[in-house]
């Protein structure tokens, strides 16, 4: 039964710099990179060396714990650099593009006509398997599992998030093919979740082989974890898989055209961007091609984030877009001192609380920076997190269970259902400046280790 769910708890942060719905081409980058650090809890083992020639779809590395899961090159060219960090941890695998656009042929096929093993094997070989992630633990899906359902969130409510209606435009066939492939991977349903107010595209509303669920309400209604909780919550022992809408298209292209087509649309947004818009680019592209000559001069230096301002990763200007990200946010750093900031009225400051005056100015957008706005403290205020987590979960009690490593309590309080990004708003609002997302991540890692 298609579900209609109205969510009330949450917050749409009024941040400046939303991307205009203009699609531009970037100049073709010379280098691309896949970053093993984008994939949580894998151990990368390289299959290539510097100087090797690769085609789009050639394996670069695999996960030592699950050797079937390959990570492949988005373009054809030469391996230019294996960039390592502390303790020889691989940070980037860089490919210098040769511009020839050569692809490995994996063979086109109609997903509805082949069986599950064949679909899975094609995805693994092409390096597209990492596009499928799972709950619990918020990691790459385990090919040996059978998920109880597949979830796709067709809308993103995070601050400055791209409009997926705009991104999937004119790609109806690829999207449907992708859905068909995913539908074979589970014995349950493929849930396609749309927003009552933001989703208009027929590509979503008229998709086949899916159950269409409608959500309404503020962020984090677009988070797939929140949606899973309200449609078909995860219990201990169950798995659910999820894929981002643009990645469904990439999967669809594998079956339609037989190749790893790494084309992706990425939005560049944020108050520090002169002209925020959408760019036609590739997975693993350098962000320099997006931000070139597009960053405002300001008294505060810019921070580049692959992803959104709540759960994205901080990157340098000469770094590459994350594997899963279709948004690059640029906001000002907040490394300034604020004289008596906690006492003065602060009419220009934004706060979700009513201790400042921003609640009087609806509709105003703010240039938010990275200042912590206070020192770290113990938990004092209560009832704050519950306002921003629309799940039947007691957030602070769960966090405390993680902090004391109480595995039984973690399980009982719902650790299997959560992901760090679902708590990002709680972290934003926290008076005590607790690092909630990293605590949740630590809890998930602890439980995963216990279970294996």
């Amino acid at each position, binding site marked *: 039964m298609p579900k209609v769910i109205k969510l009330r708890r949450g917050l749409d942060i009024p*941040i400046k710099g939303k991307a205009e719905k203009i699609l531009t081409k970037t100049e073709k980058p010379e280098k691309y990179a896949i970053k093993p650090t984008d994939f949580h809890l894998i151990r990368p083992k390289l299959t290539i060396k510097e100087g090797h020639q690769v085609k789009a779809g050639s394996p670069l590395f695999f996960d030592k714990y699950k050797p079937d899961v390959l990570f492949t090159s988005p373009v054809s060219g030469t391996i230019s650099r294996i960039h390592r960090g502390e303790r020889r941890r691989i940070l980037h695998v860089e490919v210098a593009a040769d511009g020839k656009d050569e692809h490995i042929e994996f063979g086109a096929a109609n997903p509805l006509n082949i069986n599950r093993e064949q679909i899975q094997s094609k995805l693994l070989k092409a390096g597209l398997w990492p596009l499928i992630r799972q709950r619990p633990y918020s990691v790459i899906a385990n090919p040996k599992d059978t998920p109880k359902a597949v979830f796709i969130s067709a809308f993103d409510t995070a*601050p400055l998030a791209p409009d997926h209606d705009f991104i999937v435009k004119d790609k109806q066939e690829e999207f449907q093919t992708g859905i068909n492939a995913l539908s074979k991977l589970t014995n349950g349903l493929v849930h396609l979740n749309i927003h009552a107010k933001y989703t208009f595209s027929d590509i979503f509303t008229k998709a086949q082989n899916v159950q269409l669920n409608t959500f309404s309400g503020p962020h984090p209604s677009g988070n797939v974890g929140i949606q899973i909780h309200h449609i078909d*919550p995860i*219990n201990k022992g*169950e798995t659910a898989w999820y894929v981002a809408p643009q990645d469904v298209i990439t999967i669809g292209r594998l079956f339609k055209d037989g190749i790893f087509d790494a084309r992706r649309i990425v939005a560049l947004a944020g108050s520090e961007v002169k002209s925020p818009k959408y760019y036609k680019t590739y997975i693993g592209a350098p962000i320099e091609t997006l931000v070139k000559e597009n960053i405002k001069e300001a008294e505060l230096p810019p*921070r580049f*984030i692959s992803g959104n*301002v*709540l*759960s*994205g990763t901080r990157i340098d200007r000469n770094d590459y877009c994350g594997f899963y990200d279709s948004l690059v*946010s640029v*906001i000002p750093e*907040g*490394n300034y*001192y*604020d*004289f*008596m*900031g*906690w*006492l003065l009225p*602060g009419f220009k*400051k*934004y*706060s*979700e*609380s*009513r*201790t*400042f005056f921003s609640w009087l100015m609806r509709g105003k957008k703010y240039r*938010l920076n*990275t*200042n*912590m*706005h*206070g*020192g770290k*403290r*113990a*938990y*004092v*205020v*209560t*009832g704050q997190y*519950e306002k921003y987590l629309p799940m*039947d979960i*007691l957030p602070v*009690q769960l966090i405390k269970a993680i902090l004391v490593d109480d595995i039984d309590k973690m399980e*009982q*309080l719902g650790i299997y259902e959560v992901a760090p990004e679902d708590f*990002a708003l709680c*972290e*934003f*609002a926290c*008076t005590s*400046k607790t*690092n909630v*997302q*990293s605590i949740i991540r630590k809890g998930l890692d602890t439980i995963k280790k216990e279970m294996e």
Partner: protein
Amino acid sequence: MNSLRKFVDKIKPHFEKGGKLEKLHSTFDAFETFLFVPNTVTKSGAHIRDNIDMKRTMIMVVFALAPSLLFGMWNVGHQYYEAIGAIGTISDKFLYGLLEVLPIIVVSYIVGLSIEFGIAQARGHEVNEGVLVTCFLIPLIVPVDIPLWMVAVATAFAVVLGKEVFGGTGMNILNPALTTRAFLFFAYPTFMSGDKVWVSRITEAYANKENPEIGRLITDNGDKIVDAFTGATPLAEAAAGNIHHYSIFDMFIGSIPGSIGETSTLAILLGALLLIYTGVGSWKIILSVFAGGIAMGGLFNALSGIYPDNAFLALPAYEHLMLGGFAFGAVFMATDPVTASQTERGKWIYGFLIGVLAIMVRVLNPAYPEGVMLAILLMNVFAPLIDHLVIRKNIKRRMRRIEVNSKQ
């Protein structure tokens, strides 16, 4: 403010690791963060954070307490003028009260901050803002005639045994200000109850009367106490069976004897409005404490016909809310988030039981005309239990889902 910032930056290295004054880092840090919200940027997790922090939250509580303090100062003056049968303007009375109350505030803050800074320094932690609120609360819950050394001992008790031994702000089980009050009440009962301590200088006047050299009811200022004056609080009067000594208007405005900050229901309600509006104080707790008080008071009113001996039963429930420390406790003590129930559902139960117990102790127990302090402290102890029950329900809901699923 640039010059101020430059000055701070100049002396800062002395307090960092390797500097000469490295041992005083926490102290320096407290002053620096008092003047400037620090320039730290986010390193992990969300890249943007809300502007609210602990200092902002705590200062809202201080703002909310301000009406009670200001009114309390006027009231100290008002009670004294009533006692000596004199007429005075608002500013006369306020000035008198200010001079009586200010020493208590000063002692409270000096003792409290010294201990807090010392312990923070010894532990190498940042100084916590909670002490600013605790030190503001202590003068408000003591009678005006309390000896200053007693204030110092009580403040030290509050900061050390009420908070620091548990690990500092956020870790304590019992409300520190109420722990102070309980300590004073049980250690120095004659200074904390009776009918002489609530109006300034009356105790001394009676001592002077006993003194053969003076022999008259005269205060240190040389003023004679009016014969008909009684300094008993309306609550004590009610416990003695003497209901309606003061008018409802007096009780609501607060021109009655009592602890410095607890008398004016109006001032407290103004503070409550600020706390609720800014979201700093839980409206659920405030509402349920009042509801519990009315429920219990109403029950007793109904029973007053059957038990005519206990005149206190007949005190109308709504008057209970305006007398003694009930309103003050409901708004400023019960709402302390660290010691109250931490689950949203638990807060209703916690608050309601405080209201019920407070009235019950008042009316049924002849030894304690005031039951709010004890009720809140007891519920502080039980708050974790209430939370435990709420958490268990949450867990059971999850378990039931697994059972239902495994049956399908």
